[in-house]
């Protein structure tokens, strides 16, 4: 892999990391367990592996943004997650931040902004 491709992969990962938190919090406005959450994110074009998703869920739970409980379903014990009240507040603020950031980046990358030597 070329250094540029390597750098792109690294930066893409960095860019996705913050977005994943927003996506997970938003998806968990409806209660789900890990596997269905992963599949639901995949269906929306956000691929996330188990090794990333479960540690993230634990971290968000330890921060009080998610709540979870173990329940039996389909003859198996599963851990169900849902967003907490505090998580909803944080999600609302994150989405506002996201919108502002998106507008800023769109303004910077708008056509005509990349002309060299422009004042």
């Amino acid at each position: 892999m070329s250094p540029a491709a390597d750098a792109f992969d690294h930066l893409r990962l960095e860019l996705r990391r913050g977005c994943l938190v927003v996506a997970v919090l938003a998806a968990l406005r409806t209660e789900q367990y890990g596997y269905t959450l992963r599949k639901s994110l995949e269906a929306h074009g956000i691929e996330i592996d188990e090794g990333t998703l479960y540690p993230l869920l634990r971290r968000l739970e330890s921060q009080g943004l998610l709540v979870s409980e173990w329940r039996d379903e389909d003859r198996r014990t599963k851990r169900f997650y849902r967003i907490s009240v505090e998580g909803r507040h944080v999600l609302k603020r994150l989405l506002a931040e996201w919108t502002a950031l998106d507008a800023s980046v769109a303004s910077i990358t708008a056509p005509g902004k990349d002309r060299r030597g422009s004042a």
Partner: protein
Amino acid sequence: MALLDRYLTAVAFWLPAKEGADVTAELRDDIQSDIEARETTLGRVLTEAELEAILTRLGHPMRVAERYLPQRSLIGPALLPVYRTGLTVLGSVAGVWLLVIAAVAAVEPAWASGDRVAGALNQLVTLALIAFAVLTLVFAMAERWTARAGTAWTAASLSSHPDPRRVSRLGVTFELVFGLAVLVVLADIGPVSASWTLGDKAIIDWTPVIPALYWATVAVMAASVAMSLTNLTRPRWTIQRLGLQMAIDSTTLVVVLLLMPLPALSVTPLAADPDTVARLTTIVNATWVLSLAAIAGVLVLALFESYRRLAPPPRPRR
């Protein structure tokens, strides 16, 4: 044991017991859900090779487990280059020591007979390992210390550049490693008078004045190590630290100057003739006096440098 159980047991091995059971229960459910979904698509049970492929894709059990654990490091990225410099200095000192052993063995074959070379190498390796362990411990402690001290930091403590009171990172690392190495050697020698045999020709002993100064030397070196450690974590001289450093250097200088006229080493002849003993005595005493003179010279320079640093630093530019 089924392959999935073996995999989950391997993941749990790297996690705290309480967390391990919870993590693997959740992972088991996810993997089983994945297996069931594939079996539904294929219309058959997965083969062992296909299951193996799923687990291989998940990754090495240790790598999977470490994602659940907080990131920790013994020595952080800021101190790591300094630590590596310290290790390089330590390695260089050990290398020079090794060269000295090799040179003495080549020049004096009589000395190299028997177990002497093995003994010298054994001592070198032991001291190097102890110094390495102490250096690592000191940097690990410095890492914890700076992490705590960092919360009390304010921008007002920054100074303008060039700043005569700025601590040289290389210099302070060298001082720290040197101080630790001397402490390790002092601990190895012990407070009892050490003696060396030169082949079967003579025995060199410290005269009683040196053992009497042992604990004073240990105290000075320990103070020097503590000062280097402080300078490493707070790399700017303060008036108080400069005063303390000058006090340490002045005391050491006085002790060195008092030692110079004293017979610090005595040579006891074994099988050597009087001329050899006289020559040996002259070489040993001259080496001793020259070493003390070199130390005194370094101390005078250090005192002058500290005095220069006492001058008020330039007014910071906004």
